[in-house]
């Protein structure tokens, strides 16, 4: 079974938005869940967050960082991926919290729209804070303007919006108003540092963890993370967890199990890109 890419575009530097036809996922997807994608017979299974779902389509937004995401980004509208499994993981805790703040860093911004919509539906006040290194790496800001009651944009270099980090805005907000729940989604290091801001006030804070996965269904334990001193499987117990209980150093170590293999794979891909299987139907 193949799943067709109905729409493909590059929405920021090296960041791609795909709409893929996968009714079994789109009809059941909830905020906080993800899919596992395998491009072809030789491909790796990689997890990607469901950024939106509409009719028969799901949206994924990804950064081309290694072999699989580079290969994925090279696919065109009308082409297909071999496997899309999902929706996987526990949905986020979507209820009436009151005043919610959603923070997205880098490609993690892609996870916010579906979450913002769901929280609004529950009657929450939703503030979005998004941050990236520079304006060319920002994404989905127009959409989030619609989805959130308020949206704050930050860049590390000041090229757009507030000159600084989302954590600075969050700290200020925590001083000024009562915040009931915070979501922080982005690279592990960003989630670790940003979530420190809510420790003093003990504000409930969720993060979406991204360890290396294989099946995504709780069968292998590749995705295990330590939360509150207990081992959890991020793919079935999460991916969202209480930020203040996460063993961040362990997570970051476990994201780097295969650096040499990832490099070899990417080098191979870059070298053979035009002769390899992805090019077969164009060249041979």
């Amino acid at each position, binding site marked *: 079974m193949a799943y067709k890419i109905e729409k493909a575009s590059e929405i920021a530097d090296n960041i791609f938005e795909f709409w893929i036809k996968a009714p079994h996922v789109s009809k059941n997807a909830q905020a906080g869940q993800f899919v596992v994608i395998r491009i072809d017979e030789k491909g*790796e299974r990689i997890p990607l967050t469901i950024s939106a779902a509409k009719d028969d389509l799901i949206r994924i937004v990804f950064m081309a960082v290694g*072999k699989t995401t580079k290969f994925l980004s090279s696919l065109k509208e009308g082409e297909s991926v071999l496997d899309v*499994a999902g929706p996987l993981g526990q949905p986020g805790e979507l209820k009436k919290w009151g005043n919610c703040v959603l923070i997205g860093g880098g490609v993690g911004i892609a996870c916010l729209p579906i979450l913002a919509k769901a929280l609004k539906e529950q009657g929450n006040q939703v503030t979005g804070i998004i941050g990236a290194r520079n304006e060319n790496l920002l994404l989905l800001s127009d959409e989030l303007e619609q989805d959130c009651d308020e949206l704050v944009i930050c860049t590390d270099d000041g090229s757009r919006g507030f000159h600084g980090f989302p954590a600075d805005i969050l700290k200020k907000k925590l001083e000024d108003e009562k915040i009931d729940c915070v979501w922080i989604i982005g690279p592990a290091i960003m989630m670790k540092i940003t979530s420190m801001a809510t420790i003093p006030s003990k504000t409930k804070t969720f993060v979406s963890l991204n360890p290396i996965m294989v099946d995504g269904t709780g069968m292998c334990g590749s995705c*295990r993370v330590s939360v509150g001193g207990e081992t959890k499987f991020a793919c079935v117990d999460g991916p969202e967890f209480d930020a203040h209980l996460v063993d961040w150093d362990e997570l970051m170590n476990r994201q780097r199990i295969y650096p040499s293999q990832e490099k070899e794979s990417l080098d191979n891909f870059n070298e053979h890109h035009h002769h390899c299987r992805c090019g077969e139907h164009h060249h041979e």
Partner: protein
Amino acid sequence: MSKRDAAERILDFLEVDEGLSEVNAVLEATRCMECVRPACVKGCPVNIDIPGFISAIAKQDFKKAAEIIKSDNMLPAICGRVCPQETQCEGKCVLGVKEKPVRIGALERFIADWERKNEIVTPKTKKPTGKRIAVVGSGPAGITAAAELSRSGHSVTIFESLHAPGGVLTYGIPSFRLPKDIVKTEIDQVLSLGAELKLNHIVGRSVSVDNFLAYDAVFLGTGAGLPSFMGIEGENLNGVYSANEFLTRVNLMHADRFPDYDTPVLKGQKVAVVGGGNVAMDSARVARRMGAEVYLIYRRREEDLPAREAEVANAVEEGISFYCCANPVRIIGGPSVTGIECVRMNMGVLDESKRPCPVPMTGDDAKFTLDVDVVVEAIGQSPNPLLVSLIPSLKRGKRGNVIVDENGQTSIPNVFAGGDIATGAATVIEAMGNAKKASSAINEYLNQ
């Protein structure tokens, strides 16, 4: 049976056992006494007419032998290879009392392999009943239920969460014991009876519990896929795998052929495998084939190893070093594994399994450390909680297994279950036996 030489076979993932030749199969078949009340049949969880198919082999009517087997077992090439025959059919064969039992498993495999090369025998199906049945999981339990229910004329949909069918047959058991093209052929045959297979569909997630329970009947064959970990220090270091992960990376994702295939695995220079069952043997032998020196750590004595004797012998031949009466207490390293610390075990009083209960030694010599860069834990799996935990009214036992009656019916009338989800980790043929029983119970239930 001809077994390939250990020195040759550790260099590849091709089958170890090359099976019986035609001449030897016919010779072996003539040993069977065609007992009137065959004990062997009672030992087979799907009750194959064993003397029947063996006598057809003796008469060199291989097609008839295939038809006889197929009427009770749609996966004979698989069972002939992986059934623990010594405790099942062959364990009961009367010839086993004085000499060796008839090699029923090898004969079954011979016929299945012959059938694959010559003509495929497909059992007949009944006319459509118009009933819709959902089968969850495409392991041996799910596939067997799908075969039986399709043959009864029902419209069957199999949901499988992975991208390939077969369950443990595909992701767990390595190809040197069970070649994957064989698994594919036998599953394709079952599908040819009319069942529809939906891959990448996680029931409970891609199919809501309500939609799923709305089928006329459902069969749960979701297996025992939840890996256990020891709970010792250092377990989350880089290089520590569950057997499930290690085997899945290699068998399902072909990490042994990285970078041709994209999924990596740490092959390790020195690999410690913890456990003593078939899963541990498989993990050790996979690690060996990827070039590592392999240590198998088991807490009881060598004679207590729960793995099949033949597989232990294979592992020994392939150069796996056994550290019996030892148990890991700590995995050393950071961020990657550099060693495993173990404690020697004394054998204490007999426990309920009639084996001595292992007790850690104390004192200076009690502990030893092995330098390793990969650790694989093969200490057991429990029933897969993903779907069953989403159905609160489904009664479950202490170990998380779904509780069924002798017909495989659960606490919800139209829900039946079988295989590892009901029994806890067991065997391929028991899963198939459960599924057959449940399928006839489903037929009865639908006729009410």
